[in-house]
């Protein structure tokens, strides 16, 4: 039972983990990642469409990263080229993604009705030998492929940020972009690349949802997961492994919610559906005061124009 819930927490936390890792890159580079929700949605949509058209889950994954990147490019142009407000731009692309995916989905149906495009889902890959370990085997080593990918990615991002020169440059763009400039690198370019990477990773997070968990696309299927991922970044203090832990906690809230709905409880299913959002709020309220944002986050950088 416990083992079951833990395994489900890891599984359900995976889309959050991807989104959080992408958002973390963007925010450490100094750009608020409010657009995560839309990037996930674009990725979930593109993944399903490509898989449905080509019957290849691999191409579906590529398309989902591309879908997230496409939306990220809009953010790059608005915030980096024109210096638009980062948070409200994020909200704008979320609305854009919601509208665009719903509109395009109906293009595959008749008379403006939304069709149900069924695609196969990524099956679990038990890892030989490790999967037979007690408890740990079920929790960590009998998961679907993107869950492994997410954990590896979290480790990779952690090491990359902390130990490589490029990672240092990215962090500097979020703390003191003028230092980056003085060091001979263009901080606007660093931020643009970070946003695009964020889009690709968050797009894959959408694919986790549509191609690994559900097997189809429905309007607005991310349902606030992008915002919960933002909460996970803050709770994890902008560190990849801590964000991973936060995602598992939020995943657990969701897993419990799904499980409890089967029981007869004195509270209705709607109150239970609030848990992920309430847990996110409660945890944020708990750590809120001590969270320290990257120093130059939200500060627009504009090249001097003649």
């Amino acid at each position, binding site marked *: 039972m416990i083992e079951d819930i833990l395994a489900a927490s890891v599984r359900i936390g995976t889309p959050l983990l991807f989104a959080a890792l992408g958002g973390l890159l963007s925010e450490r580079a100094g750009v608020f990642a409010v657009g995560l929700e839309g990037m996930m949605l674009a990725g979930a949509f593109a993944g399903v469409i490509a898989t449905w058209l080509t019957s290849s889950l691999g191409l579906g994954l590529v398309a989902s990263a591309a879908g997230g990147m496409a939306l990220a490019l809009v953010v790059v142009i*608005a915030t980096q080229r024109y210096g638009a*407000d980062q948070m*409200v*731009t994020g909200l*704008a692309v979320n609305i854009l993604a919601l*509208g665009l995916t719903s509109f395009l989905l109906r293009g595959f149906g008749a008379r403006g009705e939304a069709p149900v495009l069924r695609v196969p889902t990524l099956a679990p890959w038990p890892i030989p030998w490790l999967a037979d370990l007690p408890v740990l085997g079920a929790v960590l080593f009998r998961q679907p492929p993107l869950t492994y990918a997410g954990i590896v990615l979290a480790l990779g991002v952690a090491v990359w940020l902390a130990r490589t020169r490029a990672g240092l440059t990215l962090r500097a763009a979020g703390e003191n972009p003028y230092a980056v400039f003085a060091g001979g690198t263009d901080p606007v370019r660093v931020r643009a690349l970070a946003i695009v990477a964020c889009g690709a990773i968050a797009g894959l997070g959408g694919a986790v949802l549509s191609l690994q968990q559900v097997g189809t696309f429905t309007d607005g299927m991310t349902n606030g997961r992008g915002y919960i991922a933002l909460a996970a970044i803050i709770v994890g203090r902008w560190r990849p492994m801590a964000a991973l832990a936060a995602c598992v906690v939020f995943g657990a809230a969701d897993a419990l919610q799904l499980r409890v709905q089967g029981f007869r409880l004195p509270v209705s299913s709607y109150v239970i559906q609030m848990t992920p959002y309430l847990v996110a709020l409660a945890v944020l*309220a708990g750590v809120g005061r001590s969270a320290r944002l990257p120093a130059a986050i939200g500060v627009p950088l504009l090249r001097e124009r003649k």
Partner: protein
Amino acid sequence: MTATITRGLTGVGAALAIAALLVLSSGKNPLVAYEALAQGAFGSPDRIAVALNKVAPYLLTALGVALCFRARVINIGGEGQIALGGLGAAWVALTIPAAPPVVLVVLSALAGAVAGAMWAGLAALIRLTRGVHEVLVTLLLNFVGVLLVAEALHGDLGEPGAGFPQSPLLERGAWLPKLVKGTDLHVGIVIAIVAVFVVHRVLWHTPFGFRLRVRGASEKAAAYAGIDMHRSFMGVMLISGALAGLAGAIDVLGVHYRLIEGFSSGFGFTAVSIALIGGLSPLGVLPAALFFGFLETGALAMQRAVGVPSPLVSVIQGLTMVFVLAAIALGGARRRV
């Protein structure tokens, strides 16, 4: 002012052009689609009434958003505040159905405003005491607020045996009076337009409005000038929540005559785009709200008539926002030089 108008019109024009390309790529003629849209929005007095009824809640909510954004308080909790407003209004109307008609409708609408203000106040409280950014708090509370409405409709407020999550029909005394006999047009639009001028006055001609503008221009200057930052934050959130709550109440008391699950869906985000396109000025918000109210009303007719999906409206909204945001920033950058 002219810059605001130019920005708004350019943004809307560019968004409509891109949307036309989308329609074209789906194998439909955009001119036919836009004509069906205009027909659906303006085709008959009834359509105009439906559209103006849509404009009223958009306008009220967008006014609150504009005030908040002016003070650099990023309240995007419109949807939750509208949901709570509708819930509060329906609850009062169903709890004291025997009250005299005028009293009932006024009390219900007030209850909506109070409920919306409390929801926004809760977000402000979390922001001020726990330091969690208001963007995240208001966004997360949106989901909770909408679920609260669902919970109420599956519990005490629900209509038994309706088969759909909705409350029983409200007493006639709680319905908003009609503005034009024989159409659905109710007085909500008048209330909203009065609110435009009140908010305009508050923003430009009162000390409170001045404090909000200073706060928005520079937090440091505002703090140095002795403006109580917490108080002004809470104040603007409460006002904006009350306006959104009133919007929810008006939708429940004027259009549906009952609380319906999901009635607030998408309202909050639409209000944010209206506030931005209106240049965060109360008078500018009026044409922007009219535009989106008619656009949305027409879009449903367009979907029925020519099969172009109505989510095209969200595409237009999102694109217009991006264009206007970029234009605002660009204008600011030019001024700096």
